[in-house]
């Protein structure tokens, strides 16, 4: 493996605004009165509910069990009683089932998971089962169950483990602080994942704009035979396919998975959670989230229990000085805008971001002037402007032939468009239409 990372074609350089929270150490959020744990926090099947209204639960005890292989269990963030099992607005605006817990303030421990101290000698299958039992999902955003990625199907061999510490989204600093302050947890997690996969080593990819995190990781990396790779600063460096290319030079074929080129990618926060799950027996009930944005009094990074209401997170950050234009879960490039404050911190909530009024304007989309900026910056090397024309004409068959399915929805095209055309939105629609068409065909 060469030391020089490869540069993927395309990409954009938005103003990263990370300075708002990058220097703020992770603070443990206090215990709140109530938590709203959304049932379905993973890609795949929702878990099966194990509790009912009025039940008492302990911190770490099971709320719901995995309902299949691509599903993960859910655990109580603290001790208390189940107040209600109800529907709340989910991150995409659709109402989703949610378990509301009234905390008893004791925070009494009741995890079914026993710590595994000698993980180095523990069987890989046992470690993998632990990762599953702890309910760990991709904490970078997608929420894909971690154990599924660690289970290569028959005939596929994995030879490279990559940890995603790129954190290329502007504003977000949660992974940065995690790698800086808890470097050993990240590296330990990497070593455990490597053991599960039967690998000797793993590579942590970090964008070069976080030199302190790279240094912190390097100090402990050799102890666990893990390598740290600085990466060029270029959005979307943290996109799975771009990351794999940067680190290994391999291109994941369109429509295929990292495993098809022998790679497994896990987020650094997921790795740290895996380390906790194995050596401390801690299920996935907490995560580090950046609460930031110019309208906030005190942006920063907090360790929240899963299910923390976003209003509490905003209060911890001192509240607002001006009415923001948008509330986002995630970063400004791929995050989801919220219409309600009743959303909660989930396993994949890397950021709670307020966008100020002067950062957005109500653009009217103007005609394409064929400047080609979207073509130049597309990291998947498709032709956004041409596909956009096809979508406007409702010719989803053209869009498909122009490889719209390769789109990773990173938003670089929309970001760069001087005519403010809703390219990303059009491609999301095209992908949905094409998939619906495929389903119809059977």
């Amino acid at each position, binding site marked *: 493996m060469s030391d020089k990372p490869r540069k993927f074609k395309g990409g954009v350089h938005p103003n990263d605004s990370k300075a708002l929270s990058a220097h703020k150490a992770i603070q443990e959020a206090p215990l709140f009165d109530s938590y709203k744990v959304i049932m379905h926090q993973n890609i795949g099947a929702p878990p099966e509910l194990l509790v009912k209204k009025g039940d008492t639960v302990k911190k770490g005890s099971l709320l719901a069990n995995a309902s299949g292989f691509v599903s993960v269990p859910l655990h109580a963030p603290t001790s208390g009683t189940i107040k209600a099992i109800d529907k709340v607005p989910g991150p995409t605006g659709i109402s989703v089932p949610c378990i509301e817990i009234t905390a008893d303030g004791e925070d009494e421990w009741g995890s079914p998971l026993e710590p595994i101290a000698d993980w180095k000698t523990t069987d890989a299958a046992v470690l993998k089962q632990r990762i599953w039992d702890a309910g760990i999902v991709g904490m970078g955003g997608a929420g894909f169950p971690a154990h599924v990625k660690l289970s290569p199907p028959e005939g596929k061999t994995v030879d490279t483990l990559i940890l995603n510490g790129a954190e290329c989204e502007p504003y977000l600093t949660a992974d940065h602080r995690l790698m800086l302050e808890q470097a050993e947890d990240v590296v330990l997690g990497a070593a455990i994942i490597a053991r599960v996969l039967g690998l000797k080593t793993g590579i942590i990819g970090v964008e070069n704009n976080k030199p302190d995190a790279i240094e912190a990781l390097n100090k402990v990396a050799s102890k666990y035979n893990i390598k740290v790779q600085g990466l060029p600063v270029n959005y979307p460096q943290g996109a799975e396919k771009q990351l794999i290319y940067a680190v290994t030079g391999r291109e994941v*074929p369109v429509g295929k998975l990292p495993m098809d080129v022998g790679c497994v990618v896990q987020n650094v926060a997921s790795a740290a959670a895996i380390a906790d799950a194995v050596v401390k027996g801690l299920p996935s009930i907490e995560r580090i989230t950046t609460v930031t944005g110019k309208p906030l009094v005190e942006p920063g990074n907090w360790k929240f229990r899963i299910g923390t209401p976003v209003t509490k997170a905003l209060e911890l950050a001192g509240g607002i000085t001006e009415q923001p234009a948008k509330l986002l879960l995630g970063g400004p490039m791929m995050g989801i805008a919220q219409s309600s404050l009743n959303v909660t911190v989930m396993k994949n909530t890397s950021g709670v971001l307020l966008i100020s009024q002067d950062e957005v304007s109500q653009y009217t989309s*103007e005609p394409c002037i*064929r400047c080609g900026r979207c073509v130049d910056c597309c990291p998947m090397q498709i032709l956004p402007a041409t596909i956009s024309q096809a979508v406007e004409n409702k010719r989803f068959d053209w869009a498909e032939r122009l490889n719209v399915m390769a789109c990773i929805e990173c938003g670089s095209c929309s970001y760069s468009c001087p005519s403010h055309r809703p390219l990303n939105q059009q491609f999301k629609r095209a992908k949905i239409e094409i998939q619906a068409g495929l389903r119809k065909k059977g």
Partner: protein
Amino acid sequence: MSEETPTIQLPDPAKLVVSNSPHMRDKPTINKIMFTVVAAMTPALIVAVLFFGLAALEVLVLCTLSCVLAEEGWNKFMKRPSSWKDGSAILTGLLLGMNLNAGAPWWICILGGFLAIILGKQLYGGLGYNPFNPVLVARVGLLIGFPGLMTTWDKPQLGVMGIDGVTAATPLGLAPGETFIKDMVLGNVGGCLGETSVLALLIGGAILIAFKLIKWEVPLMFIGTVFAITGIAHLVNPEVYHSPFVHVFSGGLMLGAFFMATDMVTSPMTHKGAWIFGFGCGLITSLIRLWGSYPEGVSFAILFMNALVPLIDRSTIRKPFGFTAPAKGEA
């Protein structure tokens, strides 16, 4: 509890905007792009006024005004919102002025402006939809309508704020050996406003490339192809054919290669397409200059290649990242 800390304010959810990602936009707008191109044209504009004086200024102002008026008149007529502020009509006007003789009568300027905006752009649906470069549509329209007026060039006189009716031929109209590269580089040659100084055009071109407003492949291939083909012709028969340097430093080539052929709307979107487009422009220009009946061929070459842009775009659809050819038997 939040009641204990009443000073903490939370966002009003009723005022939150919900829209699709991304929630950030890069700075450039159509307006900024257009005015950066105007800025890149400034050196050539200044040289034009230096050599041709107030007459040049008059042509430029008239062309710009007529383009803006045509655009707004059309918007009124079609009940569309005003659009001149996006800068594209101003840019079209200035480029049109650059393509005219300093002594062009006022009505040529006005007519040109209307031809460019209405016939060249708006009839196709406005900005972004025109297949041909609007300025060249106007120029060629005027050339066909008024061939005499459009091929008479006033002699540039540095520092004299006016033209005195002395005309000069463009270097390509002279016999080989009568032309001087130094004059051509600085701008002391007959011709339309914009093509007079190669140096000023090169500075403008460098600005355009530095700001990534044009694809460098287009001027490189355009000029390179003309140099190569006219060079071969000159080697074969220097008595009949100009030296390739004369071809490259003269006429509208620099103006065409940097400012006209690179028009975003009417040139290919991919870099591979830009190579083909630039080569095609150069090839056709050379053929017209060497064996055609016009001394100048840049305008026709660009218009011809404009027509091929959809084809070029279609044939240069690139392979996406991670593309693998479908296995045989599949699809």
